[in-house]
């Protein structure tokens, strides 16, 4: 309706709308002017680099030298590279284990926080703190907690009499993987919990009351009321969670830098190492471009999650 008024302003009765008027009042031109700053940023620093990255992956560019087009040679090279495949394996392991546990613990925490209890507001605020603090800085705290000699965990376990020697947390391949996954879960749980809690609060309590009157147990309450109503928000939250876990860089870089013996190298850290430290921009770009299919898969999951949500509500797809 507002636009009708604009349109009539744009065509005064006594003279034709000049080109200048068109630029000032036409809805599409106005839209263009308003979009200009955001679009400039996104095109110059997001869309263009995204394309450039894919182009770079087909060249042998190095730092300080313009590359030649070499076709899929980088990818062929990676195909035979055991470290690359190890990083793919690590990334998948890291993403799957961390996301599954983040979801389980986050949902559990959300359910706990949804209960009525004293200091509720303060507890909820405290839970979110790991999400606020910069990842690198909390990763450093974990680095210190998992120190090989002065780890507080080793100390406590020794004093409890459970182990006799310090655990070499970040020096042993299995332990290092467990530690980085733990740190990732620690950082991600608050986000999952608080967003799911927001979803939980939209579920009407009368549903539970009705179900309880009908003799439903707590598990049935969860399985047949909470979970189905929460599915849409779970789909979105988990897509974000998977996406950001898959492309994680800072946590690994601050804690292990991919070591020991590449056991915690993710695709992002490997591409940084190859591209920036070793200077092989083309090869690094090929590794990061190899992440794109996985990301597309995650986005598709989110898309179908949203579709299902509309279908569940019986709404048209607007």
């Amino acid at each position, binding site marked *: 309706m507002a636009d009708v008024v604009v349109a009539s302003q744009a065509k005064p009765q006594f003279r034709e709308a000049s080109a200048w008027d068109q630029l000032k009042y036409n809805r599409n031109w*106005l839209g*263009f002017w308003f979009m200009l700053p955001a679009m400039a940023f996104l095109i110059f620093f997001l869309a263009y680099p995204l394309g450039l990255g894919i182009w770079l992956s087909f060249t042998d560019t190095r730092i300080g030298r313009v590359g030649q087009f070499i076709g899929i040679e980088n990818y062929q090279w990676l195909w035979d590279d055991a470290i690359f495949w190890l990083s793919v394996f690590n990334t998948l392991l890291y993403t799957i284990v961390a996301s599954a546990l983040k979801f389980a613990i986050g949902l559990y925490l959300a359910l706990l926080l949804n209960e009525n209890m004293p200091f509720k507001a303060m507890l909820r605020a405290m839970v979110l703190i790991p999400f606020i603090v910069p990842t690198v*800085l909390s990763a450093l*705290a974990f680095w210190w907690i998992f120190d090989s000699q002065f780890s507080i965990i080793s100390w406590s376990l020794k004093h409890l009499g459970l182990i006799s020697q310090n655990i070499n947390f970040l020096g042993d391949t299995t332990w290092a993987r467990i530690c980085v996954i733990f740190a990732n879960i620690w950082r991600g749980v608050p986000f999952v919990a608080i967003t799911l809690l*927001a979803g939980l609060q939209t*579920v009407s309590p009368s549903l539970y009351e009705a179900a309880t009157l009908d003799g439903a147990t707590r598990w049935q309450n969860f399985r047949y009321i909470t979970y189905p109503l929460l599915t849409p928000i779970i789909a979105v939250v988990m897509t974000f969670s998977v996406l950001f876990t898959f492309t994680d860089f800072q946590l690994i870089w601050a804690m292990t830098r991919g070591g020991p013996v590449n056991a915690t190298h993710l695709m992002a850290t490997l591409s940084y190492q190859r591209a920036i430290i070793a200077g092989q*921009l083309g090869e690094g770009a090929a590794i*990061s471009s190899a992440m794109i299919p996985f990301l597309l898969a995650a986005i598709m999951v989110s898309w179908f999650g*949203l579709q299902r949500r509309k279908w569940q509500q019986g709404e048209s797809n607007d």
Partner: protein
Amino acid sequence: MTDLPTRSIDLKNVLSGSAPTADHSEGMSYLQSVPRRIVTLYLPLTIIVVVLLFPFYWMALTSVKPDEQLLDLDRYNPFWTWNPTFKHFHKLLFESYYPHWLWNTMYVAICATVLSIIASVLAAYAIVRLRYKGANLVGGLIFLAYLVPPSILFIPLATVVFQYGLFDSPMALILTYPTILIPFSTWLLMGYFKTIPFELEECALIDGASRWQILIKIVLPLAIPGLISAFIFCFTLCWNEFIYALTFLQSTSNKTVPVAIVNEFVDGDIYRWGSLMAGALAGSLPLVILYAFFVEHYVSAMTGAVKE
């Protein structure tokens, strides 16, 4: 796009206990006895909260412990210290570039946030209210841009930054951070702008206001909570950003706090832990303080971006 079933999310209630849910849930809690509540609710909750907060306690404790206590776990109980020292903070503030790094981080974060908010306000208003041809498509594309992670962009961006001659200058970060912030804050502000009634704008249009005046004088004052949410969340994201800052900055004095701590403080020194943790704590405190004042806005930013 769509709201959640049954009731839309009331953001203030996520954190405060005064949710309508709370009044009703009182009705069912009598079904649980006190011991059962302790085992199924308080015990697991305590464990989770302790695990979530322990690293910060440890960070704070380490940063005030004297060096000899840090490394001698047999004679001193590591969980507490009776003679705290501010030596590590002193070293941080007066013997390193730390104030510089803090200033760089703050400067980059504020500039990038302001730029992104201005761009996003205009974009969100245009998408929601001008509804030009293709507005929905552009909205979808901006959402997709939100899903492009920095870890696949940093290599080509490094070459772009180099070409534009921005390498090793704060401008490189100020111009690249908005690519992370604009999609997020545009999406968040679109949600806020949708809640402002059309009628207000129509009245203003009839009174002869231009679109620009409407945006400045009507829409923005009504969207202030959304602006605050977007602002502090963007600020936090900037402060947290690591990979761009690591790649685009080289000289020690130009670095931001996260990068500087990881690169400059991590040397072979066995006594580094105190100052390392002091640095990490000092780098987190500004955000935690900001968070303490704007808890609800944080939550609305987080859930707002997911809700849409």
